[in-house]
């Protein structure tokens, strides 16, 4: 049973019951009042008639006429005829014997009618005051009109019930449908959201509780949608990472397996044997580098650092020394410029940070351009910066640059880079130092990456 069914039924039953009870009570009261006034009227009329007859009888007696039954009947008759026109029957009894109206055999049919209407006849009987105690006047008044009126009222009441009931049903149906419309809307929207369409919203603009519910519901749906898209994005990132890792593992493995097969089972010349051996060696190195980088990443994540004062000039020299050969091979220049003597950090990790960035810069740069290693103070922090004027990155590339295994080159070609772990390693190193990393890049103009470290005169960060 639906909610609006319940409301409809409950309201209908309650309303009709209340209406009926009150109408019945009103009718009962009105009946009672009518009866009261009717009996009062009857009593006063009877008193009036009795008094009139009494005075009549008195005056007759005063004239010296004896009150024989015939006279009494004639008196009663004259009154009786007069009052019959007003719907009042009079009966006169003497010592319990009916004097008026005179009984006659022919009026039996009338008797029956009278008997049938007996219950609707109001009868009041009272003896005359002295000296006519032996006489008794009965006053009979037909009140079937009152009953008929009551009957009529009853019929009318039933009719009203029959008319008002269905009318009420229709009106209630329309009203309740209208009032529960927001519920239906909410329910439909919840259903579509449950089916996975998180972009759906309840379109309801009312200030009542439903409006409030809809507002909160929409807020919830928005949060859920956001979460779902975040989750989907994360799943996508993870999938991309796994795909890239698979490529980084599979490519060298393919060569290693293939050349090893070739060496063991093929009939090849010595020159090819040497070539195969060299390839197995170089691809093994490549896998080894990848494994070590992954290990570095994991170690950095789990091991606290011991920070010390790192001499910037020595740091730059170490990094430059490592990369000098590659820089000259690629026809590039390296420019070192340091205006701060030292920073807080781990010398090995910072050197690795710089070396990774220099390698990226070499890959991005055209022969003849310069790579700059800079160190300077800024807002109380020591900044190390690696700057190149190479190919730069697009916004999409900037956004994903720190993602493990991300390579700007979708073919992940060996000619233009490595596994794509360099920048994620740099970010890990920065995080281990609780330092900020900033990447600035303009396509076609170059890239600069900065790390913001504590200066030795400041308190060392507590790790």
């Amino acid at each position, binding site marked *: 049973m639906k909610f609006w069914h319940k409301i409809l039924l409950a309201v209908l039953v309650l309303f009709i019951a209340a209406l009926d009870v009150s109408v019945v009570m009103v009718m009962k009261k009105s009946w009672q009042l009518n009866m009261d006034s009717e009996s009062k009227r009857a009593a006063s009329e009877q008193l009036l008639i009795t008094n009139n007859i009494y005075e009549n009888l008195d005056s007759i007696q005063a004239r010296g006429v004896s009150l024989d039954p015939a006279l009494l009947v004639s008196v009663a008759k004259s009154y009786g005829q007069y009052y019959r026109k007003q719907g009042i029957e009079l009966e006169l009894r003497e010592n319990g014997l009916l004097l008026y109206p005179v009984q006659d055999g022919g009026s039996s049919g009338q008797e029956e009618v009278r008997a049938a209407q007996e219950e609707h006849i109001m009868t009041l009987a009272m003896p005359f005051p002295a000296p006519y105690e032996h006489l008794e006047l009965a006053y009979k008044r037909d009140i079937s009109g009152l009953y008929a009126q009551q009957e009529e009222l009853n019929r009318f009441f039933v009719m009203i019930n029959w008319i008002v009931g269905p009318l009420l049903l229709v009106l209630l149906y329309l009203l309740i449908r209208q009032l529960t419309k927001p519920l239906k809307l909410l329910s439909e929207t919840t259903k579509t959201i449950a089916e996975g369409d998180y972009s759906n919203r309840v379109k309801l603009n009312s200030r009542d509780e439903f409006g409030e519910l809809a507002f909160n519901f929409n807020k919830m749906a928005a949060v859920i949608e956001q979460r779902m898209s975040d989750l989907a994005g994360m799943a996508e990132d993870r999938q991309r990472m796994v795909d890239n890792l698979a*490529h980084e593992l599979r490519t060298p493995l393919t060569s290693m397996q293939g050349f090893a097969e070739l060496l063991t089972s093929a009939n090849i010349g010595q020159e090819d044997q040497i070539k195969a051996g060299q390839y197995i060696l170089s691809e093994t190195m490549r896998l080894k580098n990848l494994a070590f980088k992954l290990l570095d990443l994991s170690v950095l994540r789990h091991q606290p650092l011991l920070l010390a004062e790192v001499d910037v000039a020595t740091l730059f020299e170490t990094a430059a020394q490592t990369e000098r050969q590659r820089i000259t091979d690629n026809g590039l220049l390296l420019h070192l410029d340091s205006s701060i003597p030292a920073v807080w950090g781990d010398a090995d990790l910072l050197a690795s940070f710089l070396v990774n960035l220099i390698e990226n810069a070499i890959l991005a740069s055209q022969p003849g351009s310069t790579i700059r290693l800079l160190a300077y103070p800024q807002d109380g922090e020591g900044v190390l910066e690696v700057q190149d004027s190479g190919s730069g990155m697009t916004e999409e590339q900037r956004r994903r640059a720190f993602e493990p295994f991300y390579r700007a080159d979708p073919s992940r070609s060996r000619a233009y880079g490595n596994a794509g772990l360099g920048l994620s390693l740099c970010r890990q190193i920065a995080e281990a130092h609780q330092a900020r990393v900033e990447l600035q890049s303009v396509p076609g103009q170059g890239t600069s990456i900065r790390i913001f470290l504590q200066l030795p005169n400041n308190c060392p960060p507590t790790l």
Partner: protein
Amino acid sequence: MAHILVVEDEQPINDLITMNLKLVGHTYSKAYTGSEVAGMLEKERADLVLLDVMLPGLDGFGVMQQIAPLQIPVILITARNALSDRIRGFELGADDYIIKPFEILELLARINVVLRRNEQAGAVFICGEVEVRFPERQVRVDQLPVDLTAREFELLEVLIRNRNIALSREKLLELAWGYDFAGDTRTVDVHIRQLRKKLGWEERIKTVFKLGYRLEVQV
């Protein structure tokens, strides 16, 4: 036998594939980027293209679209085994799809299947006095027909298609007898002995110590 274009940007893998192609008697060209493929194929027709999917410049799928009018069979080589990639490759008309890392024998077998389907597998193989005609399943020594059983011919074909590569007895069983053959590896020895005797190839079919057999032919 066939001329094959190898498109692969990883130098080691490119060399690996071409060295093996040379061993089994195919000729080849090398390409390292996707963008140069169409131009190379215009200059020199190839019977088959081995195509890496992740290529600098134009990727493998782009290359397939470019060379589709040439109607050259393509085998895709890729490190990604996502179903969507495979479906995309086949939709673009790839004949086969092989995932890194692969075994060389598997690559050669797939190459042969594709070439045979396109009737480029090499109908006749001649080595010294021996002439093998694959379509007719005929073998002649000194112009005289030699009778080979069906199984011997299958074994001979496997040896020729993978010549200069040592094949283990198990591999030979798998390739010549079929995956579900429940025979002994000594069956292979018996058939090899028969082949050597019938073709006079005592020297050509080498027993490789601890491994199996190899048909040696000068490249």
